[in-house]
């Protein structure tokens, strides 16, 4: 199956989506963007809840424009599950199921057999989403759309359900569009990411590709890169552009032809602190001395902010065990940081 959106524009209330084009094969496309960026409008346009002003939507050879919601054969999992409150979990699934076998199959697969006699009000957030997913899949859709189904769940439940969803998606052989504002969920579930801002797709690619080569400061920032600095392109050589950040000169591997005033970014995961090992560190590399400003523990990972006086910037790096225990990352401690030239990206100033 292939879901193809071509030059879609949709006006919904005061918001205009697109024009945007997407091709989703039998894969999970995670649409990632901030609130109000148009993620849900993309789903609503595909599902038929809102009618696009222009463009075409095809599921294989079948046009979905002007096709009523009920004939699109597209399953939708809504943000809060949208379970029918007057029906039990079983009745919700049976309402949608095309065959009785589907009820058994998806209640087993989603591990909800023990809660089937409960009404939605008696279910937890995670259970509600499992039932909603079973209900949608029981209708045997040809494509699946999910609108931030994990956003209202507590972190441990979200983490567990994320793992279950990943396993489930691998068993499905249909196009899946998963909308979220959560970068971790998007990268965990998406075979590809589409980064959306103000109704437009800014970048589309694999999570690794987007992390390693964001095409704009917005994409870099929204995919977890908080190291964005004002820089000036001062020269070019055979490796790429040479930039100046404060008093510091940095070699990059970027071929830059735009304005000399740029935004430079270095992803926190690509900065080495102390003697932390790093696989992608290749020459030419840069070493700075800095002072620890702050450290934040996020699960097993530690996020360290280091002030680099010579560049007049503060860089954030992520440190993982066992380095977390080996380094002294207390405030005012002097540390060495290193990053590869390939880790530096340049964007036109916004």
């Amino acid at each position, binding site marked *: 199956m292939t879901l193809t959106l071509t030059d879609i524009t949709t006006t919904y209330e005061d918001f205009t989506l697109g024009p945007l084009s997407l091709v989703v094969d039998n894969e999970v496309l995670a649409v990632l963007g901030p609130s109000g960026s148009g993620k849900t409008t993309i789903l609503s346009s595909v599902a038929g809840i809102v009618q696009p002003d222009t463009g075409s939507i095809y599921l294989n050879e079948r046009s979905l424009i002007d096709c009523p919601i009920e004939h699109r054969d597209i399953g939708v999992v809504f943000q*809060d599950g949208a379970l*029918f409150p007057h029906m039990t979990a079983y009745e919700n699934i049976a309402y949608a199921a095309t065959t009785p076998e589907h009820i058994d199959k998806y209640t087993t697969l989603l591990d909800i057999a023990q809660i089937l006699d409960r009404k939605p009000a008696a279910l937890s957030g995670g259970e509600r989403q499992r039932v909603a997913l079973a209900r*949608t899949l029981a209708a045997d859709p040809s494509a699946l759309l999910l609108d931030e189904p994990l956003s209202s769940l507590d972190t441990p439940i979200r983490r567990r359900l994320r793992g279950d969803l990943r396993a489930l998606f691998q068993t499905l052989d249909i196009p899946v569009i998963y909308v979220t504002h959560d970068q971790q969920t998007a990268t965990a579930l998406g075979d590809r990411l589409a980064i959306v801002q103000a109704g437009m797709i800014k970048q589309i690619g694999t999570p690794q590709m987007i992390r390693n080569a964001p095409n704009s400061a917005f994409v870099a920032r929204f995919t977890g890169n908080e190291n964005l600095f004002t820089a000036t392109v001062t020269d070019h050589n055979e490796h790429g552009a040479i930039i100046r950040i404060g008093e510091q000169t940095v070699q990059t591997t970027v071929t830059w032809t735009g304005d000399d005033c740029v935004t430079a970014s270095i992803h926190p995961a690509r900065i080495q602190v102390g003697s932390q090992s790093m696989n992608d560190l290749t020459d030419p590399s840069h070493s700075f001395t800095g002072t620890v400003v702050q450290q934040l523990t996020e699960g097993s990972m530690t996020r360290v902010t280091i002030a680099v006086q010579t560049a007049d910037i503060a860089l954030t790096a992520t440190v993982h065990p066992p380095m977390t225990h080996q380094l002294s990352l207390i405030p005012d401690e002097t540390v060495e940081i290193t990053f590869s030239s390939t880790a530096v990206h340049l964007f036109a100033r916004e």
Partner: protein
Amino acid sequence: MPPSQTNTTSKLSSLQRDWLSIALSLGGVLLLYYSIPLVSLLLSVQPTTIFAELANPAVQRAIVTSVFGASLSTFLATVLGLPLAYWLARRKTIWQQVTLGFVVLPLVLPPTVSGVVLLTVIGPTTLLGDVASVSGISLTRSLAGVVLAQTFVASPFVVVTAKAAIERVDETLEHASRALGKSRLQTTHKITLPLAGPGILAGVTLAFARAMGEFGATMMLAYYPRTMPVQIWVSFVSAGVERAYPVAIILLAVALISLIVLHTIAHNPWT
């Protein structure tokens, strides 16, 4: 708990009690204004008088006309009002506001004015009245007239209450149902109506109670056959207020039964 915190909590609790006492005192005046006349009416008539009045053929005919007419007009109000309520609940346009204005108009019109308004359309000298008369149907001074008058004044209760009930049903549930392959009709039948059901039934009950009590428009359109409110008025002007009491008590009993039904079904078992 520290003494200062205990004092603060105690003061807040005391203030709340004081305010509730004032609210109850003011509301109590209104409550007495409702209940005292009702109790007074009940005490003013012997049960034997009520039973004797129930044996009066004119009263029996009035009861039958009222119950049959109110049932028919409630049925019409429901069948025609529910689709309108659905449209009003789900479409947010300028026409929705204009339409809603027309719907609530009969609620604010004096009943006699409603009767006059209807007479300009279905009265004996109008085109519709003539066409109906040629077909052997009288739209005034007939059960049809009673039903038309009752429908005019009672149907807004169905539309307005059902609209509010349907609006409370999250539209996402309808989208979810349709995305599961169910048609609009199946979705309305299986999702919207069951969820809005208690609210819709409340509106239907209110419409029935309003139709039972309809007097002004009915007087203008159909003095005959007499409904119970018309019978009360006839008894009052022809034989004095005492003769009106028993029929009023019978009508009161019907209204109370309607209220009990309303209270029972208005509880939404899913919330």
